[in-house]
């Protein structure tokens, strides 16, 4: 694999948002001194722009994949639990519920005083 081919792979990975900050810095330094690779990057961008235009999204741009963080997930779970509890409380206040005692507890009893 030549140097240009390796840099071309890095250019594609950069456009996909898959390079680390150090790799992005190395690529930027190389593009500043290598017109061939700069041209390759420009042609990659033009290709992606034309593909996006063809699919009806002229302003489309590549976004890195969203990662659902653990804390966000916990917050969403908490919000869902609170919504469920609130809904249950409202439903009980509105329509009542089975109550604390069973059917037998609500029935009449005959005791000797």
């Amino acid at each position, binding site marked *: 694999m030549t140097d240009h081919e390796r840099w071309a792979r890095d250019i594609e990975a950069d456009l996909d948002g898959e390079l680390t900050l150090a790799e992005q810095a190395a690529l930027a330094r190389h593009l500043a001194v290598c017109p061939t690779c700069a041209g390759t990057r420009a042609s990659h961008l033009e290709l992606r722009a034309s593909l996006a235009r063809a699919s009806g999204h002229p302003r489309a741009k590549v976004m890195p994949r969203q990662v659902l963080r653990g804390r966000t997930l916990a917050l969403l779970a908490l919000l869902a639990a609170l919504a469920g509890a609130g809904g249950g409380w409202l439903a009980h206040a*509105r*329509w*009542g*519920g089975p109550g604390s*005692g069973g*059917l*037998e*507890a*609500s*029935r*009449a*009893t*005959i*005791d*000797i*005083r």
Partner: protein
Amino acid sequence: MRRSTFASLALAGAVLASQGPAARLSYGVRVLLRNGADTNVVGTGEVAGPMETGLRLGVHTDSTDVDMLLNTFPEPDSFTLSGDFVATRLAGASRRGLPVYEQDEYRRHRRLAWTDTVRLHPFGTPRARARRELWVELRVTTAAPGGITRPSERVDLRDSTFDLTLEAVVRPRRATVLLALVRGDANSVPLQFDLVPDGIPRTLDLAVDPARPHHFELRLTPPEPARTARERALALDADVVCLRLSEPALTSVSMLCGRLNNVARRLALPGGDTLVATFVWPAAR
């Protein structure tokens, strides 16, 4: 005859003679409400009648109706109190905001001594730390009839937030029917009949205006059998009689039903007259 057998027969005879078929049964009722530390009497009442008399008791609140039919089965030294209960409770509301009720039917019985006072919790045994508690105190006694044969009912309600009903349930073997014809302010001479259910039909002439007399054929009949489970449990047809009135000239047949509670019932007749009938327990013979 062995001595032990003779003694048993003598004891049974003495017990039967002491209670006898002519004894009168009485249900003394007191409804009490405890609210915190205060206990108040909601209502009192008494139902009495022959030994086969049952007590139809109803305690009604805004959210719960409990109706029961209590019967006693006497034994020499004790009696069994049996109750058929029908409870209707507010269970919640529908999606459109209409109240939803649940109906519950069950039976309870307990053997008691004649001196016992029964505490009946119509809404179930309250929880240990409940602030509010309602119960019915019931005392069943027997006494010599003293010439009184007809059932009697008395209710004294002191708290209007509750409704208390007490009815004597005795199947009438005879009934006195008071009949009168009414038109505007005028009325006919009231007539009294002593009738037996399913007895021989009687004929009757009543007239407010002598120019237009009514010729009736009347007959006392038992009511239609109870249809719903609630009516059956509370024996709502047991203490009701129906008066079947037919006018042969008009080929019309009418029916008036009711308890023997001295309440006048009205029946509109063709021609503008109104027949007023009152069912009463017959006097002692």
